[in-house]
């Protein structure tokens, strides 16, 4: 990947992380861990991949994204704000009464293609969007992001079967494999592994990204995905929950806990430092 573009994407990812902390801090609740682990992914999709227009969020031929792991809405909102779908100030009223930004994605928010958050459901809606694209011979592509804990939901596998059966090669599912869910390690709660073999067995083309925070690896994965025809693609990205904020990294406790004022400041300082290093 071009170094200038990569650096710009890296900066954007840091800004999205700041948005995650800002949102959850002001909400006094929310899910920072799994939001931070998808910062690069959302950056890549909204700033390097997806055909979208913030001024025309419902453009019929836009690429679509369904955040099936909807609890990580703070990252989606931060990405959409960064991309210009709405004012960044909105992040400060996340989860407040009367606010636009709901605790989980709502289709009423500019740029949000589907309400989601009850786990296992987003991928089915993404299948429906992709099927509509096939019926209409439309040019758009559909992306859906799943949690590795989320795939314990049976509906995910109903959808996986459906997508392969109908050859939905205009659908890419990304599994954010950060290894942690609310009750602990995914391998200890009720292991969904091996994730890659499961998707292969369901008829998907599978790509594993060893470092979900490396834009070159992400770019390579999506380039490979683009070349696949006749079947849907699953990208299993190995990520770090809480990535970018030292005390949150790989800590299951930060799945669904908001930072207090002190933690917020510390986190923001770390991110400001990261941004400064990128700008140096």
């Amino acid at each position, binding site marked *: 990947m071009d170094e200038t573009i990569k650096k710009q994407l890296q900066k954007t990812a840091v800004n999205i992380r700041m948005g995650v902390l800002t949102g959850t801090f002001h909400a006094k609740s929310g899910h920072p861990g799994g939001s931070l682990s998808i910062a690069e992914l959302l950056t890549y999709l909204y700033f390097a991949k997806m055909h979208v227009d913030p001024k025309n969020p419902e453009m*019929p031929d836009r690429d*679509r994204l*369904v955040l099936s792991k909807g609890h990580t809405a703070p990252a989606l909102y931060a990405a959409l704000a960064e991309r210009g779908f709405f004012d960044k100030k909105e992040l400060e009223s996340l989860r407040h009464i009367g606010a636009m930004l709901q605790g989980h994605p*709502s*289709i*009423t928010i500019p740029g949000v*293609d*589907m*309400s*989601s*958050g*009850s786990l*296992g*459901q*987003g*991928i*089915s*809606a*993404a*299948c*429906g*969007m*992709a*099927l*509509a*694209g096939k*019926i*209409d011979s*439309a040019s758009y592509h559909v992306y859906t992001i799943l949690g590795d804990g989320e795939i314990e939901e*049976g*509906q995910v596998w*109903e*959808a996986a*079967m*459906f997508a392969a*059966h*109908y050859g939905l090669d205009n659908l890419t599912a990304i599994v954010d494999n950060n290894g942690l869910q609310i009750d602990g390690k995914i391998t200890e709660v009720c292991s969904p592994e091996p994730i890659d073999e499961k998707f292969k067995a369901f008829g998907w083309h599978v790509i594993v990204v060893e470092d979900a925070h490396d834009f070159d690896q992400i770019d390579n994965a999506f380039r490979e995905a683009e070349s696949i025809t006749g079947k849907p693609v699953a990208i299993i990205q190995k990520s770090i929950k809480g990535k970018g904020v030292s005390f949150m990294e790989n800590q299951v406790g930060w799945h669904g806990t908001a930072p207090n004022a002190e933690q917020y400041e510390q986190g923001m300082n770390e991110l400001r430092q990261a941004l400064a290093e990128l700008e140096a």
Partner: protein
Amino acid sequence: MADVKKKATRESYGEALTALAEKYPNLVVLDADLAAATKTGIFKKAYPERFFDCGIAEANMMGVAAGLATAGKIPFASTFAMFAAGRAYEIVRNSIGYPHLNVKIGATHAGISVGEDGATHQCNEDIALMRTIPGMTVIVPADDVEAKAAVEAAIQFEGPVYMRFGRLAAPILNDPATYQFEWGKGVTLREGKDITIVATGLMVAEAVTAAETLANEGIDARVINIHTIKPLDKELICKAAKETGKIVTVEEHSIIGGLGDAVCSAVCECCPVPVTKIGVNDEYGHSGPAVDLLKQFGLSADNIVATVKKVLNQ
């Protein structure tokens, strides 16, 4: 009514989808391995490229329908009421209801008249479940004519609709030449001043028969067909409450949360009068021929007559 023609409303559903396909090019049909039973097989045969079998996976089917709707399609997600409203409830609630998507749910084999398959497949709770979802319209057509008209009305309506169809052949009460389906409006099939019988679906024909019997005995019963249970025609119900003073509701559904409770809620607000609910009394069904089951569970003209007399003698 022995000489009256009969047709199961599930069949009307399959026929209506097929007949309307040309007129509405965005209409697509989904099923969950029950096309032969839900009668979407008729559509599948005529429009295979617009029919998508989701396999035995109702949760995913509802989500797929939601996704199709976001892209401008008008999906009819079809399966038995037990799986549409029961198994897939939370997906209908969160993926269709909450985003208020333009999905139509065609739920067949509702109620006890499923018959021999027994309790696991006799859904007597679907109206209750679907009524609780904000913005969901709930329609229970009484006969072939009404069912076909309801399908087209649902296509023209923007938003989620739950439509309940039956397995058992239902007497055809309406004249296709003159019938007009009015969204959210009850239909007064017979005027009367002594009592009002409010019925829905398969029970409408029973209510009409009961009213005829009652008339022969000097009891003047009004009969109202409520095909749209939500939004309910409160005006018509309240008028009946005021004018007749007593109401009996009849539904092939649990007495908890269905037509009877909807009517009770309405009259409580506008004109509290005694309401007696005929339906399935907080119990499961069991196997047996549909017509025998309906009799056994009191879902018959005879029981309506007996109940009305009891209410009037109180």
